[in-house]
């Protein structure tokens, strides 16, 4: 059992890392897009002409889910799981991959939710001053910076693992 774990434990951890890298940011994005969608629906039910402006705000928290998915794809590719030439990964290597996905997993989730709150607040700007809707988008996009930083961190770590 111990031998089996030593031989395949790392691989299992890589699968776990790949899963959480897509699950948490994806969950955060789903929550975020849903939240802004509620606010957008509130506005559109009163003034349908503002649909295109709020659609951008709604899409913004969705990017974290894509970053998580991208991280998972690259992790699976790097470890040979995706290409089919998978070799057993030892435990320490598996743990390295797990830590490598943590930035996008954690920051991805929280930044999606926080960005959604900013975007939903931006819906009020679109409602009252539609000419300033770009400012609402910029406010929400500022949060994106940290999601991008966490994505790059995760990718750098994944590719630096030898």
């Amino acid at each position, binding site marked *: 059992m111990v031998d089996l774990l030593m031989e395949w434990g790392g691989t299992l951890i890589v699968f776990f890392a790949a899963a959480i890298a897509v699950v948490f940011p994806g969950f955060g994005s789903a929550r975020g897009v849903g939240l802004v969608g509620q606010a957008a629906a*509130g506005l559109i*039910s009163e003034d349908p002409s503002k649909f295109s402006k709020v659609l951008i705000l709604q899409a913004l928290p969705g990017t974290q889910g894509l970053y998580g998915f991208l991280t998972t794809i690259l992790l699976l590719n790097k470890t040979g799981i995706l290409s089919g030439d998978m070799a057993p990964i030892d435990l320490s290597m598996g743990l390295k991959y797990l830590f490598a996905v943590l930035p996008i997993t954690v920051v991805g989730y929280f930044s999606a939710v926080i960005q959604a709150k900013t975007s*939903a607040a931006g*819906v009020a700007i679109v409602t009252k001053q539609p000419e300033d809707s770009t400012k609402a988008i910029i406010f929400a996009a500022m949060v994106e910076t940290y999601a991008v930083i966490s994505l790059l961190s995760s990718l750098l770590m994944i590719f630096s693992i030898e």
Partner: protein
Amino acid sequence: MNELQYAFAVARIRYNEMKLLKDKDFEQLISASDIDEALGKLGETGYQATQYGDLKDVFNKEAMKAWSLLLEIAPDKSLLDVFGVLNAFHNLKSALKSRVSGSDNGPYYLLPSCVEISLIDEAVGKNDFSILPEYMCQVAQISYRIMTENADGQLGEAYIDKAALDIFKKFAEKTDCPEVIRVANFKCAAADIKIAYRGCLTGKNKEFYDASLCPCEQFDITLLASAALEGKEELLDYLKTTSYKDAAGLLAGDFVAFEKWCDDSVMDIIRTAKAEPFGFAPLAAYWIAKETELKNVRMIMSAKQNGFSEDSIFERMRKLYV
């Protein structure tokens, strides 16, 4: 309730806030030369009134339109009871007074009411107060007894008013919204000051103050009652020692100015909701803003009908939310 569930409701409220009358709309109404011109200008803002006599119905319709919007969008409709509870107690008081006095005019009811008017009518008509909500049942029984057995209508009314404020504060706490809780506490304190001031001018006794003053956080009501029993100067001196020293200054001059100060203070409290993207506060603020708008329009129209000057109208104008 998770405040994020208010995203849809708040977005709709923000849109409807834009339909509230603004300073320039009120300036136009005030600048009208007579009531007919004012009615014409009011019509341009969306209020559909062709003659002065129609205004009461138009105001009721406007209020109920705003109320229906809140009922439609609020994730937890029970929280809105906080804005219908004072009217519900007013309606109870009105029904009891009408029954006890046997007046032909019938009770004067206010809407929105968190207790159905038909239920209040039935309870008072059948003298069966048990069908009323728990928080109102005992109050109705006791005040009815005071009105009939003691033949003291004013004391009975005071008892209902005190209970109304107490329940209002409890409902406000249920909303878990700091702005609404602060508004409830402020309104309670302001009502106590008004009762003490009027009681002091009309020489009310201690029993009256005990029955009417609702405990509040801002000051000690026993000290307020003692000061009111001693006289107007003592009452104002006592208020100067509390956080309501501004009120003392206004009461020393003009009671109308004090009432304006009360409404403006409520608006100052709720104004913070303008920057809140979620939660119950924007809904509460919209309702208070609509009530203030109606109060201002009512006051302007009444002033125009009675030929008041523009300056006197401006003096009485309440602060707006938008």
